[in-house]
């Protein structure tokens, strides 16, 4: 399951990444394997999305979210 497939309000736990370059940036921002993520909302036009991870809100594009694989 990819992060980008979740609906607002749904949550998941990060398992792995499909893109090395993106994963480095995501991990720096606190998206680590084992960390749980809640999808808070999508932008009015459907993209990007806002997620809650390690206690704060992060926004990222769906394309970027699709590199995060959930457990």
């Amino acid at each position, binding site marked *: 399951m990819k992060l980008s497939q979740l609906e607002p309000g749904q949550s998941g736990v990060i398992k792995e990444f499909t893109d090395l370059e993106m994963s480095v940036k995501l991990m720096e921002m606190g998206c680590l394997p084992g960390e749980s993520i809640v999808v808070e909302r999508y*932008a009015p036009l459907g993209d990007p999305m806002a997620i809650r991870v390690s206690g*704060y809100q992060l926004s990222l594009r769906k394309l970027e979210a699709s590199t995060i694989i959930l457990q």
Partner: protein
Amino acid sequence: MEGDLKIALIGNPNSGKSTLFNILTGLNQKVGNFPGVTIDKKTGFCKLPDNRISQIIDLPGTYSLYPKSRDEVIVMEALADKKSAIHPDLIIFVADASNLKRNLLLYTQIADLKIPVIIALNMMDLAKRSGIEISSDALALKLGVQVVPISARNNDGISCLKQAILNSSKIPLQVDSIEVESLAPELIRKIQKELQVDLPYVALQLAHQHEQLSFLNADENKRISEIENEFAFHSQKTQATETIARYNFINDVLFDTISFKADAKLETISNRIDKVLTHKIFGFILFAVILFLIFQSIFAWSEYPMGLIEQLFVWLADTGNSLLPEGVLRSLLIDGVLAGLSGVLIFIPQIAILFAFISILEDTGYMSRVTFMMDKIMRKVGLNGKSVVPLIGGLACAVPAIMSARNIENWKDRMITIMVTPLVACSARLPIYTLLISLVVPSKSIWGFINLQGVALMSLYVFSIISAVVVAWVMKYILKSRERGYFIMELPVYRMPRWNNILLTMYEKVKTFVFEAGKVIIAISIILWVLASYGPGERFDTIEKKFESDLYTQKYTPAELDRLIASAKLENSYAGVLGKSIEPAIKPLGFDWKIGIALITSFAAREVFVGTMATIYSVDADDKHLESVRQKMQSARNPDTGLPVFTTAVAFSLMIFYAFAMQCMSTVAVVYRETKHWKWPTIQFVYMTGLAYVASFIVYQTLK
């Protein structure tokens, strides 16, 4: 002044670093440039409890030492290069207590550079309200550094922080976080040995970042590349391993120093606000309303202070005329210097109001929601959600806006943003727009509250944004991409704006405008005065002789004669000659040679147009009547037809010309510095001037 101690502030974006910087330095700060790059370098001085003076350097906010943009490279350059002028003796690491885990990632990287460090645990109040309890003593013990809980917004804990600076040691005492050597043992050892680097982590960072670091010479750069190849060094893989190792260390540290309670009120409030502010419909309506409000306020609120400034200069000119003896000096002071000075100061109220709004939007956290909402549209036209900030910043001035485009990591997005930002109606166009709108648009209200002039101005702003978007969309297909773009951005919790911070921003922007743009404006006013007061060869003598003849002295009164002489002199001055020579080219746009002169002089900066008009008309018009520029332009008549010069068609054609033309030397310079190539500003200049000519031609020919 160097100060006794050099302290660098380092931290994540939104960690409250800038607020702390403002508290520590107050008005004792100055904005300069970092060597080699153009981002603002903010430094200031802070008096310590023992009366020593410390120099505080505000380094750009970053999430890690691995830069995502050129801005962030500065942090590494300052810390790794001991010879750097901004290499600190002490680091204050500003950490957001409400998000400690992520903040500590950067801390552990910094700690491995072995510079003495203090942690300022900021936003403790916020953390408490979100149910986070942190034992700063336990944290201090585990990391081996002083940890000072502060709340920069509420001015709490600042004296403790200053005391901690006094107590800090000259040698780094922090404990090691991870085993850096194990990440790439041979590579690190070899770089350490060959380039004489003391610290393993610096050696590793050199391997990662050597291509971007300006303090390395070509040989060193080449050598590092060779060593990288020798050991098959994979930068991203190593970064990933390092980041995971650091988080493991951080988890150990935080295990018994931090505790969470279930109820997090703050998040919920912020979430509720977001439900409205980023709502499908209300979100966009609200954004439009906010923009509309800003421009109505600029018009309404600035009227009174601008009137006062106008009156002051009329009084000054009056007094000058009655006190000083007639002659060259009086003319220079009043028609050159004073006219230019009033052209600068008159716009302070508008700039201050605009920046007050922009900094409120930034401060409350709303600006990042704008980015969030706009990203999808912006991406379609080849821009980035982050381009909204430079574009909105461009409403004030293209120069800082273009510099703020550095935050866009993607090269192509950044280039397009830089190329179209000068199209956005900046505050330097505001003087031209206000002047011309007040000439041709009646100051009437419809439905009792909407000012027609305000509507005209807002249309110009909206138009400017549309044209920027269209040009960006075209460029999306022309420019070739170099790298991929990210949009991974923190959405900070909504907060009340900090009023003294906003006041400081307003002060700083006004100061920059007055001193940076002001210098140019006054200098050009004086050059113009020379150009308008002197002519080539014997022309001026000939004019005086011509009007001395009986033919004229009998026909006209002395006052009329004076005016004729002045007008003839201006026409034959250097400025007149210059303006006339371009008249054939600009006639289809509805411009005469006087406007031609203003077009030439305002190549330096758009706002010079107004100063030029002031000078031209105060030289041109009857000297006894000190009218404002506006009145002079209104009463200007075409000498051939007797009709007003500034008709609706001419005024709008002129406004459209300024909307498109790259009439700003500072923008040209800043684009060159940002892109490091003359190619970009040249393309920009040509396309913008071309657009301006075509658009003005269409407008004039239609409205005529």
